[in-house]
Protein backbone atom coordinates (compact mmCIF):
# COMPACT_ATOMS: atom_id res chain seq x y z
CA UNK A 1 0.00 0.00 0.00
CA UNK A 2 1.30 3.40 -0.88
CA UNK A 3 0.65 5.55 2.20
CA UNK A 4 1.88 8.71 0.53
CA UNK A 5 -0.95 8.73 -1.95
CA UNK A 6 -3.64 11.27 -1.06
CA UNK A 7 -6.51 9.56 0.66
CA UNK A 8 -9.32 9.04 -1.78
CA UNK A 9 -12.45 7.54 -0.25
CA UNK A 10 -14.25 5.19 -2.61
CA UNK A 11 -17.91 4.58 -2.33
CA UNK A 12 -18.31 1.08 -1.10
CA UNK A 13 -21.30 -1.21 -1.20
CA UNK A 14 -22.98 -2.03 2.08
CA UNK A 15 -23.34 -4.32 3.91
CA UNK A 16 -19.66 -5.02 4.12
CA UNK A 17 -19.75 -7.49 6.98
CA UNK A 18 -18.33 -10.57 5.30
CA UNK A 19 -15.06 -8.77 4.66
CA UNK A 20 -14.47 -8.19 8.34
CA UNK A 21 -14.29 -11.81 9.41
CA UNK A 22 -10.59 -12.07 8.74
CA UNK A 23 -9.62 -8.85 10.44
CA UNK A 24 -7.99 -10.62 13.39
CA UNK A 25 -5.67 -12.28 10.89
CA UNK A 26 -5.04 -8.92 9.30
CA UNK A 27 -4.07 -7.34 12.60
CA UNK A 28 -2.04 -10.29 13.81
CA UNK A 29 0.06 -10.32 10.66
CA UNK A 30 0.97 -6.65 11.00
CA UNK A 31 2.32 -6.92 14.54
CA UNK A 32 5.99 -7.20 13.73
CA UNK A 33 5.99 -3.72 12.17
CA UNK A 34 5.99 -1.93 15.53
CA UNK A 35 8.65 -1.32 18.13
CA UNK A 36 7.85 -1.05 21.83
CA UNK A 37 7.56 2.57 23.00
CA UNK A 38 10.68 3.80 24.84
CA UNK A 39 10.28 4.14 28.63
CA UNK A 40 9.28 7.65 29.66
CA UNK A 41 7.98 8.65 26.21
CA UNK A 42 4.32 8.75 27.23
CA UNK A 43 4.98 10.45 30.58
CA UNK A 44 7.25 13.06 28.96
CA UNK A 45 4.57 13.82 26.35
CA UNK A 46 2.56 15.36 29.19
CA UNK A 47 5.16 18.16 29.29
CA UNK A 48 4.54 19.03 25.63
CA UNK A 49 1.36 21.08 26.09
CA UNK A 50 3.61 23.88 27.44
CA UNK A 51 7.16 22.81 26.51
CA UNK A 52 6.38 21.70 22.95
CA UNK A 53 6.21 18.42 21.04
CA UNK A 54 9.38 16.40 21.77
CA UNK A 55 10.35 19.07 24.31
CA UNK A 56 10.85 21.87 21.79
CA UNK A 57 8.63 24.86 22.67
CA UNK A 58 7.25 27.10 19.92
CA UNK A 59 7.01 30.13 22.21
CA UNK A 60 7.65 31.34 25.72
CA UNK A 61 8.28 28.29 27.83
CA UNK A 62 11.71 26.71 27.98
CA UNK A 63 12.60 23.92 25.55
CA UNK A 64 13.53 20.83 27.56
CA UNK A 65 14.78 18.47 24.85
CA UNK A 66 18.33 17.13 25.03
CA UNK A 67 19.21 18.49 28.45
CA UNK A 68 21.31 16.38 30.81
CA UNK A 69 19.17 13.71 32.48
CA UNK A 70 20.62 14.28 35.95
CA UNK A 71 20.04 18.04 35.75
CA UNK A 72 16.47 17.60 34.57
CA UNK A 73 15.75 15.06 37.29
CA UNK A 74 17.29 17.23 40.01
CA UNK A 75 15.29 20.25 38.84
CA UNK A 76 12.01 18.34 38.64
CA UNK A 77 12.51 16.73 42.04
CA UNK A 78 13.26 20.10 43.62
CA UNK A 79 10.13 21.63 42.07
CA UNK A 80 8.02 18.74 43.36
CA UNK A 81 9.31 19.23 46.91
CA UNK A 82 9.64 22.97 47.45
CA UNK A 83 6.81 25.19 48.63
CA UNK A 84 4.64 25.55 45.52
CA UNK A 85 4.79 29.00 43.95
CA UNK A 86 4.27 28.55 40.24
CA UNK A 87 2.31 26.19 38.03
CA UNK A 88 5.38 24.02 37.32
CA UNK A 89 5.79 23.25 41.03
CA UNK A 90 2.29 21.74 40.91
CA UNK A 91 2.88 19.92 37.61
CA UNK A 92 6.01 18.29 39.02
CA UNK A 93 3.92 16.93 41.90
CA UNK A 94 1.84 14.92 39.40
CA UNK A 95 4.62 12.32 39.15
CA UNK A 96 6.40 9.96 41.51
CA UNK A 97 10.20 10.38 41.79
CA UNK A 98 10.59 7.20 39.70
CA UNK A 99 8.38 8.70 36.99
CA UNK A 100 10.35 11.98 37.10
CA UNK A 101 13.50 9.92 36.53
CA UNK A 102 11.94 8.22 33.47
CA UNK A 103 10.86 11.61 32.09
CA UNK A 104 14.33 13.12 32.62
CA UNK A 105 16.07 10.14 31.02
CA UNK A 106 13.75 10.23 28.00
CA UNK A 107 13.97 14.01 27.47
CA UNK A 108 17.77 13.74 27.55
CA UNK A 109 17.64 11.48 24.47
CA UNK A 110 15.70 14.00 22.35
CA UNK A 111 17.42 16.32 19.87
CA UNK A 112 18.08 19.83 21.19
CA UNK A 113 15.89 22.57 19.69
CA UNK A 114 17.34 24.09 16.50
CA UNK A 115 19.42 27.18 17.28
CA UNK A 116 19.79 26.31 20.95
CA UNK A 117 22.89 25.22 22.76
CA UNK A 118 22.98 23.38 26.03
CA UNK A 119 23.64 25.68 28.95
CA UNK A 120 24.65 22.83 31.24
Amino acid at each position, binding site marked *: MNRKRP*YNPQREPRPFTSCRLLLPVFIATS*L*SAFAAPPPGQL*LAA*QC*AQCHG*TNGVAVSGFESIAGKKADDLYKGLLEMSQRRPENIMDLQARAFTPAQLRLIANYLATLPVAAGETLDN
Partner: protein
Amino acid sequence: MNSDRRNFLKLAGLAAAGWAFPRPVSAATTAPHVLVIGGGFGGATVAKYLKLWGGNIDVTLIDRSSSHYACILSNLVITGAIPMDRIKLGYANLQSKRGVNFVQGEALAVDPVAREVTVNVGGTHYAYSYDKLVLSPGVEFTPPAGNYNADLTPHAWKAGPQTLLLKQQLSAMTKSQTFVLTIPKSPYRCPPGPYERACSVADYLTRKKRGARIIVLDANASIQAEPVNFGSAFRGIYKNVLSYIPNATILGVDSQAKSVTTSQGVFTGAVVNIIPTHRAGQIVTDAGLANDPTGRWALVDPLSYASKVSPDIHILGDSQGTGQPKSGHMANSQAKVCADAIIRAFNGEAPDPAPVTSSACFSPITSSKAAWLTASFQYDPVTKAMKRVEASFAEAAQPTSDGMQQMYQWADNIFADSFS
Protein backbone atom coordinates in the same frame (compact mmCIF):
# COMPACT_ATOMS: atom_id res chain seq x y z
CA MET B 1 -9.75 3.10 1.70
CA ASN B 2 -7.22 2.63 -1.07
CA SER B 3 -7.40 -0.08 -3.66
CA ASP B 4 -4.79 -2.39 -2.12
CA ARG B 5 -6.72 -2.58 1.12
CA ARG B 6 -9.99 -3.07 -0.71
CA ASN B 7 -8.55 -5.89 -2.78
CA PHE B 8 -7.14 -7.54 0.29
CA LEU B 9 -10.45 -7.29 2.10
CA LYS B 10 -12.21 -8.62 -0.97
CA LEU B 11 -9.88 -11.61 -0.94
CA ALA B 12 -10.36 -11.96 2.78
CA GLY B 13 -14.10 -11.90 2.25
CA LEU B 14 -13.88 -14.67 -0.31
CA ALA B 15 -11.79 -16.72 2.07
CA ALA B 16 -14.29 -16.15 4.84
CA ALA B 17 -17.06 -17.24 2.53
CA GLY B 18 -15.44 -20.67 2.34
CA TRP B 19 -13.11 -20.38 -0.62
CA ALA B 20 -9.92 -22.33 -0.37
CA PHE B 21 -7.58 -19.41 -0.43
CA PRO B 22 -4.08 -19.04 1.00
CA ARG B 23 -3.51 -16.17 3.44
CA PRO B 24 -2.13 -13.28 1.39
CA VAL B 25 1.52 -12.68 2.23
CA SER B 26 1.13 -8.97 1.45
CA ALA B 27 -0.92 -8.62 4.63
CA ALA B 28 2.29 -8.61 6.70
CA THR B 29 3.19 -5.20 5.34
CA THR B 30 -0.32 -3.74 5.32
CA ALA B 31 -0.73 -0.90 7.78
CA PRO B 32 -3.64 -1.00 10.20
CA HIS B 33 -6.12 1.83 9.89
CA VAL B 34 -7.21 4.10 12.74
CA LEU B 35 -10.21 6.30 12.05
CA VAL B 36 -10.57 9.40 14.24
CA ILE B 37 -13.90 11.23 14.41
CA GLY B 38 -13.72 14.83 15.61
CA GLY B 39 -10.86 17.26 14.96
CA GLY B 40 -10.73 19.18 18.22
CA PHE B 41 -7.87 18.91 20.71
CA GLY B 42 -8.50 15.21 21.45
CA GLY B 43 -8.92 14.04 17.86
CA ALA B 44 -6.11 16.15 16.39
CA THR B 45 -3.67 15.07 19.12
CA VAL B 46 -4.44 11.35 18.86
CA ALA B 47 -4.08 11.49 15.05
CA LYS B 48 -0.75 13.32 15.34
CA TYR B 49 0.76 11.09 18.02
CA LEU B 50 -0.36 7.86 16.30
CA LYS B 51 1.73 8.98 13.32
CA LEU B 52 4.58 10.39 15.43
CA TRP B 53 4.96 7.28 17.57
CA GLY B 54 3.31 4.55 15.53
CA GLY B 55 5.12 4.61 12.23
CA ASN B 56 3.30 2.18 9.99
CA ILE B 57 -0.29 3.13 10.82
CA ASP B 58 -2.79 4.75 8.47
CA VAL B 59 -4.66 7.51 10.28
CA THR B 60 -7.74 9.23 8.90
CA LEU B 61 -9.13 12.25 10.77
CA ILE B 62 -12.69 13.31 10.00
CA ASP B 63 -14.29 16.60 11.01
CA ARG B 64 -17.34 18.39 9.71
CA SER B 65 -15.38 21.64 9.40
CA SER B 66 -12.28 22.45 7.37
CA SER B 67 -10.65 23.96 10.48
CA HIS B 68 -11.18 24.03 14.23
CA TYR B 69 -11.83 27.11 16.35
CA ALA B 70 -10.33 26.63 19.82
CA CYS B 71 -12.50 27.35 22.84
CA ILE B 72 -9.17 28.18 24.52
CA LEU B 73 -8.83 32.03 24.39
CA SER B 74 -12.33 32.33 22.85
CA ASN B 75 -13.63 34.56 25.69
CA LEU B 76 -11.00 37.06 24.55
CA VAL B 77 -12.44 37.01 21.03
CA ILE B 78 -15.86 37.85 22.51
CA THR B 79 -14.50 40.96 24.25
CA GLY B 80 -12.50 41.97 21.16
CA ALA B 81 -9.10 41.53 22.87
CA ILE B 82 -7.90 39.16 20.13
CA PRO B 83 -9.12 38.43 16.58
CA MET B 84 -10.98 35.25 15.58
CA ASP B 85 -8.01 34.12 13.46
CA ARG B 86 -5.97 33.75 16.65
CA ILE B 87 -8.03 30.67 17.63
CA LYS B 88 -8.39 29.21 14.11
CA LEU B 89 -6.54 25.90 13.80
CA GLY B 90 -6.32 24.11 10.46
CA TYR B 91 -5.38 20.53 9.57
CA ALA B 92 -2.73 21.30 6.91
CA ASN B 93 0.23 20.64 9.23
CA LEU B 94 -1.20 17.33 10.43
CA GLN B 95 -1.42 16.29 6.78
CA SER B 96 1.90 17.63 5.46
CA LYS B 97 4.14 17.18 8.53
CA ARG B 98 2.57 14.07 10.07
CA GLY B 99 0.96 12.21 7.17
CA VAL B 100 -2.54 12.21 8.64
CA ASN B 101 -5.35 11.83 6.07
CA PHE B 102 -7.92 14.57 6.69
CA VAL B 103 -11.45 14.30 5.36
CA GLN B 104 -14.05 17.03 5.80
CA GLY B 105 -17.31 15.25 6.43
CA GLU B 106 -19.96 14.50 9.00
CA ALA B 107 -19.79 11.13 10.72
CA LEU B 108 -23.36 9.86 10.91
CA ALA B 109 -23.32 6.37 12.42
CA VAL B 110 -21.00 3.70 13.78
CA ASP B 111 -21.40 0.03 12.98
CA PRO B 112 -19.18 -1.74 15.55
CA VAL B 113 -19.87 -5.20 14.08
CA ALA B 114 -18.92 -4.28 10.53
CA ARG B 115 -16.25 -1.91 11.97
CA GLU B 116 -17.23 0.97 9.80
CA VAL B 117 -18.50 4.52 10.12
CA THR B 118 -20.93 6.13 7.70
CA VAL B 119 -19.70 9.58 6.76
CA ASN B 120 -21.47 12.27 4.74
CA VAL B 121 -18.79 13.82 2.54
CA GLY B 122 -20.17 16.63 0.40
CA GLY B 123 -23.65 15.09 0.28
CA THR B 124 -22.56 11.51 -0.50
CA HIS B 125 -22.49 8.77 2.12
CA TYR B 126 -19.34 6.68 2.39
CA ALA B 127 -18.51 3.72 4.59
CA TYR B 128 -15.09 4.15 6.26
CA SER B 129 -13.70 0.95 7.70
CA TYR B 130 -11.40 0.83 10.72
CA ASP B 131 -9.27 -1.47 12.80
CA LYS B 132 -9.50 0.98 15.71
CA LEU B 133 -11.95 3.86 15.97
CA VAL B 134 -11.41 6.97 18.11
CA LEU B 135 -14.42 9.15 18.87
CA SER B 136 -13.60 12.64 20.08
CA PRO B 137 -16.71 14.59 19.13
CA GLY B 138 -16.81 17.07 22.03
CA VAL B 139 -20.14 17.79 23.67
CA GLU B 140 -23.77 17.96 22.70
CA PHE B 141 -26.20 20.30 24.46
CA THR B 142 -29.52 19.32 25.98
CA PRO B 143 -31.80 22.25 25.06
CA PRO B 144 -33.67 23.83 27.97
CA ALA B 145 -37.48 23.89 28.03
CA GLY B 146 -39.23 26.66 26.11
CA ASN B 147 -38.53 28.14 22.69
CA TYR B 148 -34.75 28.01 23.18
CA ASN B 149 -32.91 29.18 20.07
CA ALA B 150 -29.11 29.45 20.09
CA ASP B 151 -29.25 31.99 17.25
CA LEU B 152 -31.01 34.43 19.60
CA THR B 153 -29.60 33.42 22.99
CA PRO B 154 -26.15 32.07 22.05
CA HIS B 155 -24.08 29.63 24.09
CA ALA B 156 -20.74 30.47 22.43
CA TRP B 157 -19.57 27.26 24.16
CA LYS B 158 -18.43 25.75 20.87
CA ALA B 159 -16.13 28.29 19.29
CA GLY B 160 -16.95 29.49 15.78
CA PRO B 161 -19.98 31.42 14.52
CA GLN B 162 -21.47 31.37 18.04
CA THR B 163 -18.38 33.20 19.35
CA LEU B 164 -18.85 35.97 16.80
CA LEU B 165 -22.58 36.17 17.50
CA LEU B 166 -22.01 36.73 21.22
CA LYS B 167 -19.24 39.23 20.47
CA GLN B 168 -21.63 41.17 18.24
CA GLN B 169 -24.41 41.13 20.87
CA LEU B 170 -22.05 42.27 23.63
CA SER B 171 -20.69 45.04 21.44
CA ALA B 172 -24.25 46.27 20.68
CA MET B 173 -25.18 46.62 24.39
CA THR B 174 -25.97 50.07 25.76
CA LYS B 175 -24.81 51.40 29.14
CA SER B 176 -28.17 50.71 30.78
CA GLN B 177 -28.53 47.10 29.68
CA THR B 178 -27.93 43.72 31.29
CA PHE B 179 -25.97 40.64 30.18
CA VAL B 180 -27.35 37.39 31.62
CA LEU B 181 -25.04 34.34 31.73
CA THR B 182 -26.25 30.90 32.79
CA ILE B 183 -23.87 28.16 33.98
CA PRO B 184 -24.96 24.52 33.63
CA LYS B 185 -24.76 21.85 36.29
CA SER B 186 -21.35 20.12 36.39
CA PRO B 187 -19.84 18.30 34.62
CA TYR B 188 -19.52 20.61 31.65
CA ARG B 189 -16.71 21.61 29.28
CA CYS B 190 -13.98 23.75 30.92
CA PRO B 191 -14.84 24.08 34.64
CA PRO B 192 -13.39 27.62 35.04
CA GLY B 193 -14.67 28.76 31.63
CA PRO B 194 -18.05 30.28 32.58
CA TYR B 195 -16.52 32.22 35.50
CA GLU B 196 -13.73 33.40 33.21
CA ARG B 197 -16.40 34.58 30.78
CA ALA B 198 -18.20 36.39 33.61
CA CYS B 199 -14.96 38.20 34.50
CA SER B 200 -14.10 39.00 30.86
CA VAL B 201 -17.58 40.44 30.24
CA ALA B 202 -17.58 42.34 33.56
CA ASP B 203 -14.20 43.83 32.69
CA TYR B 204 -15.44 44.80 29.22
CA LEU B 205 -18.62 46.41 30.60
CA THR B 206 -16.58 48.33 33.18
CA ARG B 207 -14.28 49.70 30.50
CA LYS B 208 -16.66 50.19 27.55
CA LYS B 209 -20.24 50.26 28.83
CA ARG B 210 -20.04 51.78 32.31
CA GLY B 211 -23.46 51.35 33.92
CA ALA B 212 -24.27 48.04 32.20
CA ARG B 213 -24.41 44.92 34.39
CA ILE B 214 -23.90 41.16 34.24
CA ILE B 215 -26.01 38.61 36.14
CA VAL B 216 -24.44 35.16 36.54
CA LEU B 217 -26.98 32.38 37.15
CA ASP B 218 -25.18 29.24 38.32
CA ALA B 219 -27.06 25.91 38.41
CA ASN B 220 -24.38 24.74 40.85
CA ALA B 221 -24.27 25.56 44.56
CA SER B 222 -20.93 27.36 44.28
CA ILE B 223 -18.12 28.42 41.95
CA GLN B 224 -16.88 25.17 40.34
CA ALA B 225 -13.23 26.10 39.71
CA GLU B 226 -10.71 28.64 40.99
CA PRO B 227 -13.09 29.75 43.76
CA VAL B 228 -10.42 31.97 45.34
CA ASN B 229 -9.63 34.00 42.23
CA PHE B 230 -13.15 34.18 40.77
CA GLY B 231 -14.74 34.64 44.21
CA SER B 232 -12.37 37.54 45.02
CA ALA B 233 -13.09 39.18 41.66
CA PHE B 234 -16.88 38.78 41.99
CA ARG B 235 -16.87 40.21 45.53
CA GLY B 236 -14.17 42.77 44.86
CA ILE B 237 -13.37 44.54 41.60
CA TYR B 238 -16.65 43.51 39.94
CA LYS B 239 -19.01 43.92 42.91
CA ASN B 240 -20.80 46.90 41.34
CA VAL B 241 -21.19 45.36 37.91
CA LEU B 242 -21.68 41.63 38.57
CA SER B 243 -24.30 39.69 40.55
CA TYR B 244 -23.57 36.02 41.21
CA ILE B 245 -26.61 33.86 41.99
CA PRO B 246 -25.92 30.18 42.84
CA ASN B 247 -28.48 27.31 42.82
CA ALA B 248 -30.25 28.85 39.83
CA THR B 249 -31.67 25.87 37.94
CA ILE B 250 -33.12 26.77 34.55
CA LEU B 251 -36.83 25.96 34.31
CA GLY B 252 -37.38 27.51 30.89
CA VAL B 253 -35.95 29.88 28.31
CA ASP B 254 -37.82 32.33 26.08
CA SER B 255 -35.23 33.18 23.46
CA GLN B 256 -37.57 35.59 21.63
CA ALA B 257 -38.18 37.60 24.79
CA LYS B 258 -34.54 37.12 25.94
CA SER B 259 -35.78 35.85 29.25
CA VAL B 260 -34.82 32.90 31.45
CA THR B 261 -36.94 31.44 34.23
CA THR B 262 -34.94 29.82 37.04
CA SER B 263 -35.49 28.42 40.50
CA GLN B 264 -34.16 31.80 41.74
CA GLY B 265 -36.55 33.95 39.67
CA VAL B 266 -37.06 35.29 36.15
CA PHE B 267 -34.24 37.26 34.51
CA THR B 268 -34.27 39.27 31.29
CA GLY B 269 -31.35 40.85 29.48
CA ALA B 270 -30.30 42.54 26.27
CA VAL B 271 -27.92 39.61 25.92
CA VAL B 272 -28.89 36.20 27.32
CA ASN B 273 -25.96 33.80 27.11
CA ILE B 274 -27.45 30.38 27.83
CA ILE B 275 -24.89 27.60 28.26
CA PRO B 276 -27.14 24.52 28.23
CA THR B 277 -26.58 21.25 30.08
CA HIS B 278 -23.93 19.05 28.41
CA ARG B 279 -23.79 15.42 27.36
CA ALA B 280 -21.53 13.28 25.15
CA GLY B 281 -21.34 14.02 21.43
CA GLN B 282 -24.32 12.72 19.44
CA ILE B 283 -22.41 9.98 17.65
CA VAL B 284 -21.34 8.51 21.02
CA THR B 285 -24.92 8.48 22.28
CA ASP B 286 -26.32 7.13 19.00
CA ALA B 287 -23.78 4.27 19.06
CA GLY B 288 -25.03 3.25 22.52
CA LEU B 289 -21.71 4.16 24.13
CA ALA B 290 -22.97 6.81 26.61
CA ASN B 291 -23.37 4.16 29.28
CA ASP B 292 -22.56 5.87 32.58
CA PRO B 293 -25.32 5.91 35.22
CA THR B 294 -26.59 9.28 33.97
CA GLY B 295 -26.67 8.14 30.33
CA ARG B 296 -24.74 11.29 29.45
CA TRP B 297 -21.11 10.12 29.22
CA ALA B 298 -19.17 7.13 27.92
CA LEU B 299 -17.51 4.75 30.35
CA VAL B 300 -13.98 3.89 29.20
CA ASP B 301 -10.90 2.11 30.50
CA PRO B 302 -8.57 5.03 31.38
CA LEU B 303 -5.51 2.93 30.45
CA SER B 304 -6.54 3.11 26.79
CA TYR B 305 -9.81 5.11 26.59
CA ALA B 306 -11.39 1.99 25.07
CA SER B 307 -15.15 1.89 25.48
CA LYS B 308 -16.40 -0.57 28.07
CA VAL B 309 -19.08 -1.55 25.54
CA SER B 310 -16.97 -1.95 22.42
CA PRO B 311 -13.21 -2.28 23.06
CA ASP B 312 -12.08 -1.34 19.53
CA ILE B 313 -13.78 2.05 19.95
CA HIS B 314 -11.87 4.62 22.02
CA ILE B 315 -13.62 7.71 23.40
CA LEU B 316 -11.61 10.79 24.33
CA GLY B 317 -12.02 14.25 25.71
CA ASP B 318 -15.34 15.80 26.67
CA SER B 319 -17.47 12.73 25.87
CA GLN B 320 -15.69 10.28 28.17
CA GLY B 321 -16.90 9.72 31.70
CA THR B 322 -13.79 9.03 33.79
CA GLY B 323 -14.48 12.00 36.06
CA GLN B 324 -11.45 13.92 34.79
CA PRO B 325 -12.22 17.53 33.86
CA LYS B 326 -13.40 18.28 30.33
CA SER B 327 -10.95 20.62 28.63
CA GLY B 328 -8.74 20.94 25.57
CA HIS B 329 -5.63 20.40 27.67
CA MET B 330 -7.10 17.25 29.22
CA ALA B 331 -8.26 15.95 25.81
CA ASN B 332 -4.69 16.42 24.50
CA SER B 333 -3.37 14.60 27.57
CA GLN B 334 -5.79 11.66 27.22
CA ALA B 335 -5.14 11.46 23.47
CA LYS B 336 -1.48 10.64 24.13
CA VAL B 337 -2.43 7.83 26.52
CA CYS B 338 -4.88 6.53 23.91
CA ALA B 339 -2.38 6.74 21.01
CA ASP B 340 0.25 4.89 23.06
CA ALA B 341 -2.27 2.18 24.02
CA ILE B 342 -3.45 1.70 20.41
CA ILE B 343 0.15 1.33 19.18
CA ARG B 344 0.86 -1.17 21.96
CA ALA B 345 -2.33 -3.09 21.06
CA PHE B 346 -1.23 -3.36 17.41
CA ASN B 347 2.04 -4.67 18.84
CA GLY B 348 0.21 -7.28 20.92
CA GLU B 349 1.06 -5.49 24.18
CA ALA B 350 -1.03 -4.36 27.14
CA PRO B 351 -1.39 -0.60 27.75
CA ASP B 352 1.02 1.31 30.00
CA PRO B 353 -0.20 0.38 33.51
CA ALA B 354 0.56 3.77 35.11
CA PRO B 355 -0.47 6.68 32.89
CA VAL B 356 -0.54 10.26 34.16
CA THR B 357 -2.86 12.91 32.74
CA SER B 358 -2.94 16.57 33.46
CA SER B 359 -5.10 19.62 33.07
CA ALA B 360 -3.79 23.15 33.18
CA CYS B 361 -5.29 26.43 32.18
CA PHE B 362 -4.91 30.15 32.48
CA SER B 363 -7.98 32.33 33.12
CA PRO B 364 -8.03 36.06 32.47
CA ILE B 365 -9.53 37.82 35.49
CA THR B 366 -9.08 41.31 34.03
CA SER B 367 -7.91 42.52 30.62
CA SER B 368 -4.30 42.50 31.87
CA LYS B 369 -4.07 39.76 34.53
CA ALA B 370 -4.71 36.02 34.51
CA ALA B 371 -4.84 33.29 37.14
CA TRP B 372 -4.07 29.61 36.59
CA LEU B 373 -5.49 26.27 37.64
CA THR B 374 -3.90 22.85 37.43
CA ALA B 375 -4.72 19.28 38.42
CA SER B 376 -3.07 15.99 37.51
CA PHE B 377 -4.31 12.42 37.67
CA GLN B 378 -2.62 9.06 38.28
CA TYR B 379 -4.14 5.66 37.52
CA ASP B 380 -5.28 3.87 40.66
CA PRO B 381 -4.97 0.10 40.08
CA VAL B 382 -7.34 -0.66 42.98
CA THR B 383 -10.31 1.35 41.68
CA LYS B 384 -9.15 1.10 38.03
CA ALA B 385 -9.89 4.81 37.76
CA MET B 386 -7.89 8.01 37.33
CA LYS B 387 -7.37 9.60 40.73
CA ARG B 388 -6.54 13.25 41.23
CA VAL B 389 -3.12 13.81 42.80
CA GLU B 390 -4.18 16.19 45.56
CA ALA B 391 -0.70 17.72 45.92
CA SER B 392 -0.85 18.71 42.22
CA PHE B 393 -4.21 20.47 42.47
CA ALA B 394 -4.16 24.23 43.03
CA GLU B 395 -5.05 27.63 41.66
CA ALA B 396 -2.79 30.68 41.52
CA ALA B 397 -2.64 32.78 44.68
CA GLN B 398 -3.80 35.79 42.65
CA PRO B 399 -4.04 36.92 39.02
CA THR B 400 -0.86 38.44 37.61
CA SER B 401 0.37 40.03 34.39
CA ASP B 402 2.94 37.21 34.14
CA GLY B 403 -0.02 34.83 34.17
CA MET B 404 -1.50 36.69 31.20
CA GLN B 405 1.77 36.33 29.28
CA GLN B 406 2.02 32.64 30.17
CA MET B 407 -1.57 32.14 29.01
CA TYR B 408 -0.66 33.13 25.45
CA GLN B 409 2.54 31.04 25.55
CA TRP B 410 0.57 28.03 26.80
CA ALA B 411 -2.00 28.55 24.03
CA ASP B 412 0.74 28.74 21.36
CA ASN B 413 2.33 25.53 22.59
CA ILE B 414 -0.84 23.48 23.11
CA PHE B 415 -2.18 24.64 19.73
CA ALA B 416 1.05 23.46 18.07
CA ASP B 417 1.30 20.26 20.13
CA SER B 418 -2.21 19.29 19.03
CA PHE B 419 -2.49 20.61 15.47
CA SER B 420 0.97 20.62 13.88
